[in-house]
């Protein structure tokens, strides 16, 4: 309803908590602090990798389902103009989608992307919805880890085919071609080759659905190598619905094959196209349903990077038109004999394409999924426009600075390095995000002493220093010097800053900047000079360093993605710059206590806890509260082990203990200890954010903080001034949970109490910035803003069935404000908009949508001072105080706020006096109206009173832009203007109040005379 738009404060939901002692008895979960919801900041302007797009027209509207590499499934019901996430409770890595022909409600989702790059995630099976994505059910195939295609038999929609390439990092029998004949309830494996070879692609004859083509692919990744192809690969055909199969070889290349994509021409199904990865790769055409093949000419774009580009689509309405979305978007108008990739006008789609949906009802319309989001074409791919509404970016790391508002920095997979404010007028929009480095982005670090200097990198340690004052960028990668081996920089090379007690020659503070290959380098001059402060800290295993000779398998592929025996993690002790910990991708955990003079490998202590040897050290966290406590996460998924490894040491890394939980899923990326309360821990894995409130003994999955339950959490920071938790997700962009203080309070609470009103943080008078706002047409996804308002937190042991009443009293113990709070079990959160109770306004006449109605909701903001807050829950009272402080820096002095309040209350008083006067008039008019036979003086009296009332109250609206304008409206206009103002009227302007007060006195006199 329209009126609520005006309400200044938001009531939020909530939940509950507990003390350490009661963990065991009390079922704790993240719903109990759901009031601490994250703000999703995007961006959508760069979006992220799209793995699948399926569409269907429903009631004239193009519905789209978009599967992403790490951001779940998004649905549009308006042809891509807006999207909603529909898969937030489940695994976020999507491999394939399929919509049941003719039924938009039934959708199958195969989890686990099969564009098998180094950073690819994992899936956990197949899901199905029967109501268009509102509810999903798991349908099995849990161990397939990745699903590349789902086909539904158009002649019998209960027949479902699923191509499962299967696990990337290990041998597995959970691969192959699966079929269900009961809509996904049960599954048979139709075709299986061996533990190394999975089903990469399938094609179904559109009319003779017993004819199935399937490509099988032998592939494997190791941390230091990728191998595509092998004797297991092959193309197979069945003509009996998958009961028997034969291998297709006639006309196809001999020798080991790799990944193959196949597509049947829907308008002429005897024609089949296949792109075959082989020593000499090629595009092949069959004119006999796949039995024999001939090679066609193909550009490099057609056959490039088969493991990453496996899409080939016929135009459903034109038998000669074929699309090959790959590195570029290529199309053929002669059935695949020749290809073009020219686009005219529009924007050039982001490189690296993985999905294409051509609207069969209007083949001009297409949607293309790339490494950088979705593009739409309305002319068969001649030109494209970008859909700036999918916030599915894949961040690797996040950093924050100390500016006001603080800035957020991070690098996106295939999509540059970025900077954005954590809050912005109108919300953090696409236009607030800025690029500060190219390539794939990873670490971005602002200089701790000069916010204009920012370090970022592209893959393989290509670090740059950007000077935001001049807009210039400088390459500063450490060079190989005498005595160095060839440098080995990780794909995702650490760039880290640390504080220093040293001063430069000019007396200015210095800081330490680190970057690492197999060596650790340190700079104290913004990367102009680097000092190598370590020997090779890795295992330097030569067998794991053969990338330049063998990477890729059949098709060479050496992009630094497989660089190995490198340093991945660097942490300088927060309080002692001589102590540095380094973790490597091959399992070393190195320690120096003398700023790099000597090093000691402490990894074996971790292996003693049962963590597999040589697991990748993904993060190291040194407690800022206790110098001896540290945490390490380890990631062994590149050896096929997806377990969550987290260890803690209480003796500075000498001995370790493993922290475990049945809640954990996904390999671990990051652990963070709170900077105030050492019981509060955060763990980010490939499949979720986990929170501990007791120092790591028990953990819960974050489900109710406005993030996907299986969010891919790569990095976590705590911004020290605001105590905000800043989260880098690899699929849904940046999240911010504002101010951890309530969670810290909850950790310390005796949750057996019926209710707890927490100490209220004092509030320095302020407002969220209102300007400048990003242009709405460029906004894209807009992240919510930080709320600037006093916040009241309270805990309820049980859900309250009656409204929780909140009262605020001024220094004279006079009640100035009543409102309701939420009554949920657990933590509740209520904003107080600094307002008092609104005035009673004169009733009657026309008020809808006018300032009169607005005036009845709003009230002046209180002056600085101490206020008592009383909560009434289940008949009991709880009290706390809040200090509202002046903010002289911004011009909100005690005097100006006090004057504004006084002016507001004068008009508040005038509103109420007017209400009383009108009420008196109304009552008298009503009495006079009751007299059946009206005689003088009553007749005249009634007329005059009615006339007087008409001078005060607006009775009609002529049009939406033309209201009657009477005294009540004039009082309300001025009242609204003062009550919503943030500075007082000047002495001269303030006379406007007197004008109304004087007029009121005249009305009162007139009324008095008539009422005598």
């Amino acid at each position, binding site marked *: 309803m329209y009126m609520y738009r005006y309400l200044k404060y938001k009531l939020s939901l909530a939940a509950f908590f507990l003390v350490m002692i009661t963990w065991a008895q009390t079922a704790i979960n993240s719903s*109990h602090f759901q009031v601490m919801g994250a703000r999703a900041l995007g961006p959508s302007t760069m979006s992220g990798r799209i793995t699948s797009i399926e569409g269907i027209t429903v009631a004239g509207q193009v519905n789209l389902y978009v599967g992403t590499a790490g951001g779940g499934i998004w649905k549009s019901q308006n042809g891509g103009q807006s999207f909603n996430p529909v898969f937030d409770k489940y695994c976020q890595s999507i491999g394939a989608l399929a919509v049941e022909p003719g039924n938009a409600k039934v959708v199958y989702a195969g989890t686990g992307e099969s564009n098998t790059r180094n950073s690819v995630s994992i899936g956990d099976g197949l899901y199905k919805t029967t*109501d268009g994505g509102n509810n999903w*059910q798991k349908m*099995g195939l849990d161990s397939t880890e990745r699903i590349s295609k789902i086909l539904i038999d158009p002649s019998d929609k209960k027949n479902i085919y699923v191509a499962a390439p299967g696990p990337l990092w290990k041998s597995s029998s959970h691969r192959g071609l699966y079929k269900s004949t009961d809509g996904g309830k049960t599954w*048979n494996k139709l075709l299986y080759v061996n533990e190394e070879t999975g089903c990469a692609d399938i094609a179904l004859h559109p009319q003779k659905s017993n004819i199935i083509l399937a490509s099988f692919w032998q592939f494997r990744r190791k941390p230091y190598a990728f191998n595509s192809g092998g004797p297991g690969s092959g193309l197979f055909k069945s003509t009996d619905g998958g009961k*028997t*199969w034969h291998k297709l070889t006639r006309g196809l290349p001999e020798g080991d094959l790799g990944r193959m994509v196949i597509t049947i021409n829907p308008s002429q199904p005897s024609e089949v196209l296949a792109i075959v990865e082989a020593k000499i790769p090629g595009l092949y055409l069959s004119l006999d349903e796949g039995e024999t093949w001939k090679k066609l000419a193909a550009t490099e774009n057609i056959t490039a990077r088969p493991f990453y580009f496996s899409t080939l689509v016929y135009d459903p309405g034109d038998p000669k038109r074929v699309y090959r979305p790959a590195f570029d978007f290529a199309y053929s108008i002669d059935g695949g004999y020749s290809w073009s990739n020219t686009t005219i006008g529009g924007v050039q789609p982001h490189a690296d394409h993985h999905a294409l949906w051509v609207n069969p009802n209007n083949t001009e319309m297409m949607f293309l999924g790339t490494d950088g989001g979705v593009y739409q074409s309305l002319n068969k791919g001649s030109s494209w426009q970008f859909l700036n509404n999918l916030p599915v970016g894949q961040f690797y790391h996040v950093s924050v600075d100390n500016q006001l508002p603080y800035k957020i920095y991070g690098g996106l997979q295939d999509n540059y390095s970025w900077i954005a404010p954590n809050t912005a007028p109108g919300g953090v929009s696409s236009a607030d995000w800025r690029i500060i480095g190219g390539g794939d982005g990873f670490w971005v670090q602002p200089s701790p002493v000069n916010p204009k200097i920012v370090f970022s990198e592209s893959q393989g340690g290509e670090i740059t220093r950007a000077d935001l004052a001049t807009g210039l960028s400088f390459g500063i990668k450490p060079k190989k010097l005498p005595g160095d081996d060839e440098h080995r920089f990780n794909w995702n090379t650490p760039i880290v800053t640390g504080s220093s007690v040293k001063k430069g020659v000019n007396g200015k503070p210095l800081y330490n900047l680190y970057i690492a290959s197999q060596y650790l380098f340190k700079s104290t001059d913004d990367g102009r000079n680097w000092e190598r402060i370590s020997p090779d800290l890795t295992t330097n295993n030569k067998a794991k360093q053969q990338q330049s000779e063998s990477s890729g398998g059949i098709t060479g592929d050496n992009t630094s993605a497989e660089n190995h025996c490198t340093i991945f993690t660097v942490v300088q002790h927060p309080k002692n710059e001589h102590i540095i910990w380094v973790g490597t991708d091959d399992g070393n955990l190195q320690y120096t206590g003398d700023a790099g003079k000597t090093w000691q490998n402490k990894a074996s202590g971790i292996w003693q806890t049962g963590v597999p040897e040589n697991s990748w050290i993904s993060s190291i966290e040194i407690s800022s509260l206790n110098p001896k406590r540290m945490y390490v996460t380890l990631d062994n998924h590149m050896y096929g082990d997806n377990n969550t490894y987290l260890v803690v040491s209480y003796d500075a890394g000498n001995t370790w203990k493993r922290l475990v939980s049945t809640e954990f899923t996904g390999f671990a990326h990051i652990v963070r200890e709170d900077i105030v309360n050492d019981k509060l821990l955060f763990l980010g894995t490939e499949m979720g954010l986990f929170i501990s409130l007791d120092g790591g003994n028990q953990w819960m999955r974050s*489900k109710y903080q406005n993030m996907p339950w299986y969010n891919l959490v790569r990095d976590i920071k705590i911004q020290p001034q605001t105590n905000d938790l800043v989260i880098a997700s690899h699929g849904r962009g940046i999240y911010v949970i504002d101010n951890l203080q309530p969670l810290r309070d909850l950790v310390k609470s005796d949750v057996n109490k019926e209710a707890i009103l927490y100490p209220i943080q004092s509030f320095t008078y302020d407002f969220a910035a209102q300007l400048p706002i990003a242009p709405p047409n460029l906004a894209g996804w807009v992240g919510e803003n930080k709320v600037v308002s006093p916040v009241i937190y309270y805990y309820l042991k049980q859900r309250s069935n009656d409204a929780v009443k909140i009262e605020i009293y001024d220094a004279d113990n006079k009640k100035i404000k009543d409102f309701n709070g939420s009554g949920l079990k657990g933590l509740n959160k209520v904003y107080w908009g600094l307002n008092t109770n609104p005035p009673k306004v004169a009733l009657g006449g026309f008020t*809808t949508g006018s300032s009169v109605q607005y005036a*009845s909701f709003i009230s002046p903001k209180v002056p600085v001072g101490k206020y008592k807050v009383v909560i009434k829950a289940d008949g009991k009272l709880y009290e706390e105080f809040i200090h509202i402080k002046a903010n002289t820096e911004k011009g909100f002095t005690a005097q100006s706020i006090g004057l504004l309040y006084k002016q507001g209350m004068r008009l508040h008083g005038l509103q109420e006096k007017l209400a009383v006067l009108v009420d008196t008039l109304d009552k008298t008019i009503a009495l006079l109206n009751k007299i059946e036979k009206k005689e003088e003086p009553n007749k005249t009296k009634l007329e005059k009173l009615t006339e007087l009332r008409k001078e005060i109250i607006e009775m009609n609206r002529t049009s939406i832009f033309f209201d009657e304008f009477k005294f009540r409206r004039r009082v309300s206009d001025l009242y609204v203007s003062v009550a919503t103002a943030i500075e007082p009227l000047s002495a001269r302007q303030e006379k406007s109040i007197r004008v109304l007060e004087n007029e009121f006195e005249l009305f009162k006199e007139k009324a008095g005379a008539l009422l005598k």
Partner: protein
Amino acid sequence: MKKIFLSMMVFGATAFTLSAQTADEIIEKYITAIGGADKWTKVQSIKVEGQVEVQGLAIPYTMQGLQLKGMRVDAEFQGNIIIDIVTPTNGWSQNPLAGKNTLSPITEEELKSKVDDLDIQDAFIEYQTKGSAVEFLGKDEEDGNEYFKIKMTSKNNNEKTYFFDTKTYLIYKIESVVKQQGQEMKTAVKYLDYQLIDFGIKMPFKTDQGMMMMVIKKVTINPVVDESIFIAK
């Protein structure tokens, strides 16, 4: 190369028995929990008095219903009269706050979405006789608790998904889809504060609709309801 033809490695896959049986077991326990079918089938008219609570404001309302014949809601807020009438064939509404100043007919689409509400007995009472179909959608978690989900499709083809508490079998949440301009939007209400009323049946006295809460103050079962109130005048 060894011929790999092609062993039908048939996996006896995990069974997902989405049987109506499971749904019916849950429904049966639910009906017992709310007082039993005997009592509910005797509900032929109803009057509910309560208030809509929004941001600290309370808007009193009265709802009157005659089983499968008519339903009328009257409310008043600051002099604005809000009326909602639904019958099996027609519907009218008036809401000055939403710019509808006079009682005027609702669209067919709106009527279709509201017509199921004419069943003032619980939707699960004799649902088969009423032409509804159910589907068990498994377990799910909401607000930290576990629920059974059942999708009900009414004979008017309205779909709703119900969340049943796995311990009490009472309904906690109902999700439905509202169509606007051909696009669907998911809406949800939560049922809170179940109370046993004199008639021997149990009803939720609070309905949380996110921005607002419907709070029941008084329920009268089988009052005399004049059918003429269901005609727009």
